[in-house]
């Protein structure tokens, strides 16, 4: 009798599992989103979903929090590679574009834009630097800017004033001069967080400011062995060695803002994503400025920065109906509207992606009250594409490891190390030409 009972129980279990998939009349959009900061992202997105559903009968948004950016990418890849449905729309890193395009999981959005009455106006409202990572080499748009950030310079204005500096540095000679003047036994003059596995982002600021970004519009081209890249990495290394304004090998990502708030670092490079936290946490006057990473040009300045953060991607393997795709595009348009971008920027501190959002409340008055928010936006004129290519993860790994070996003194000859890495990278990218 025992086994018959077991069989019945198993049958009941199967019926229960099968019954879980139920019919649904509405179009349901699965929206996956990560969070890289301590914001209440789940609460915010639920609020946006509710607002959207009130205005759009028959569409249900299902927001799914998927951890940090890496977890989100891995979750989506695992679902799709295993034959699952995956999301309809997701926020993923801007640099994930080619990983997903390569697999054929995401679709270009150019068709939706071309079909709009005022598609040109919609796209031109975005800051061009924020679109750069979402455009392929033929000019097609694949992704819409959403959760965006850049690195910026934070400085302790009180300490600078004490030392006789009324304004922040505008090129890397001034950066070194001020950093050295402010370095004491228990305080670092400048912390650039290149330790801890991800030096490429900060390094890009220096490479761009020295005049040559390491990526181009062509995802099969990487420029890692240029004279500008060599000069840039040697400059970053010297901050911790010859110049002695920070720790050898660079500062760790998480420690940097903590040290700044504790008065143990006079200036730091860090993400705009931490702007609200630093402004709220400091008991001194916080100054924010463009990254003065390069030598002075004709106008005396040497600015340069990569962009960072996430974009909105649309997933389709060709099985979605016109009505579903229309609903998906409506949700993307809603999230990238001035109304939502203004709310998002003011709530989280991420850079609102379109110009009109900065004239929309509540962001307009927040930017007036705290001019620091506007600095991040204005720096976008000096900002360039974040590193992204085919085989992004593998190549980014090679670049990070090479930079680390130079910055920690393991590889003394920077030129030779960059040449060796470039040869490996070219070997991989040759498969995509």
């Amino acid at each position, binding site marked *: 009798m025992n086994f018959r009972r077991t069989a019945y129980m198993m049958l009941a279990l199967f019926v229960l599992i099968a019954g879980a998939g139920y019919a649904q009349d509405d179009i349901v959009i699965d929206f996956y989103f990560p969070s890289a900061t301590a914001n209440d992202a789940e609460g915010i997105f639920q609020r946006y979903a509710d607002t959207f559903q009130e205005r759009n009968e028959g569409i249900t948004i299902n927001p799914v929090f998927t951890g940090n950016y890496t977890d989100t990418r891995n979750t989506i890849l695992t679902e799709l590679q295993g034959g699952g449905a995956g999301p309809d729309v997701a926020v993923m890193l801007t640099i994930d574009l080619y990983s997903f395009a390569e697999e054929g999981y995401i679709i270009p959005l150019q068709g939706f834009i071309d079909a709009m009455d005022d598609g040109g106006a919609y796209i031109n409202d975005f800051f061009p630097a924020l679109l750069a990572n979402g455009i392929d080499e033929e000019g097609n748009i694949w992704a819409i800017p959403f959760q965006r950030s850049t690195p910026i310079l934070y400085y302790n204005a009180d300490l600078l004033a004490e030392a006789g500096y009324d304004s922040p540095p505008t090129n890397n000679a001034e950066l070194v001069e001020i950093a050295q003047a402010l370095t004491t036994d228990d305080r670092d003059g400048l912390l650039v967080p290149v*330790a801890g596995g991800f030096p490429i982002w900060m390094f890009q600021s220096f490479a761009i400011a020295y005049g040559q970004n390491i990526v181009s519009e062509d995802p099969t081209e990487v420029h890692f062995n240029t004279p500008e890249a060599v000069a840039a990495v040697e400059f970053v290394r010297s901050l911790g060695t010859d110049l002695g304004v920070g720790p050898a090998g660079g500062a760790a990502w998480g420690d940097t803002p*903590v040290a700044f708030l504790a008065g143990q670092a006079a200036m730091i490079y860090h993400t705009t994503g931490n702007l609200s936290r630093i402004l709220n946490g400091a008991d001194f006057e916080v100054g924010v400025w463009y990254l003065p990473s390069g030598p002075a040009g004709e106008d005396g300045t040497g600015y340069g920065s990569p962009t960072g953060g996430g974009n909105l991607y649309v997933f389709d393997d060709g099985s979605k109906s016109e009505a579903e795709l229309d609903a998906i595009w409506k949700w993307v348009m809603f999230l990238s509207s001035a109304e939502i971008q203004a709310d998002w920027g003011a709530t989280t501190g991420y850079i609102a992606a379109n110009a009109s959002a900065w004239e929309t409340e509540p962001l307009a008055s927040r930017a007036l009250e705290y001019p620091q928010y506007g600095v991040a936006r204005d720096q976008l004129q000096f900002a360039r594409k974040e590193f992204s290519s085919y085989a992004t993860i593998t190549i980014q790994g090679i670049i990070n490891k090479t930079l680390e070996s130079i910055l920690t003194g393991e590889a003394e000859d920077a030129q030779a190390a960059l040449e060796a890495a470039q040869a490996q990278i070219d070997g*991989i990218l040759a498969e995509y030409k």
Partner: protein
Amino acid sequence: MRASSRRKPLVALLQPYLLIAPTLVLVLMFNVVPAIRTVNDSLHKPARGLNAAGKPPEFVGTQNFRDLFDHGHYMGSRFLRAFRNTIVFALATVTVGVPLGLLLALLFNHKQPLLGVWRFAVFYPSLLPLIGAASIWSFIFSDSIGLANAVLRSLGHPGLNWLGDRNLVLLSVIVVNIWKQAGYFMIFFLAGLQNIPRDLYEAASLDGAGEMQQFAALTLPLLRRTLLFVIVIAFIFAFQTVEQLQALGEGGPNDSANLLLYLIFQNISERRSWGYVNAMTIVLIGVVLTFTISNFLLFERDEND
């Protein structure tokens, strides 16, 4: 009569299989099938280039393994470093952590004031979630704001970059691992010690054996089974290390403290690396099996003396 006696064995024959079926299905699905696929995938190179998802992988024989053991290859240079680190890490945590656990057990096996407090203090780290404990240590090791450097600086030392100096990171991770596990090992040794009859020691003292002699001739041989067990789990823990690295420098600058399982984790999300990831998994399993089996052989041989 005959018919029923024939039917009964059939049911009896089927019933045990039906009863273990749920477990069997799960083991097949989550252990056996993935293991077979891992071996298969380690001999293939996934499709690369555009629209890779639709293309079949290419059979490459042992090419993935040869790339891994090639210093000049981009994955090989990382793998060989992580492989060496994993061996160093395992040997260091076992040769320091296990004797430390035994020493603590010997210390806290005698009646003494506040015994429970001492035992709890030593055991406490193993109750903490690993990632939480490692995060606490990442603050202790922080260059500018960390406790370790605050102590060093108060003694006049300029401080060490625990998680940023390529020569120190692996040591830092090893220290955290030993701190986390020594108390756990102590519990097994304590249990083992309590099982040794006290009259053996009384007899030994009457025969004039000193403390060291008693330890070498009585305690150690009688703890052999516990020791084997602890060493085996210590090795397995060491090869499973992932969480600590996530909090403690993510493998260190240029993989100076990276370990095999974490390197596998770091490369798993890109299709083009799957051949390497599976080959690394096979190597890792091979290493764990070698350590475990040689431990058993070593101790079992003594057992038969």
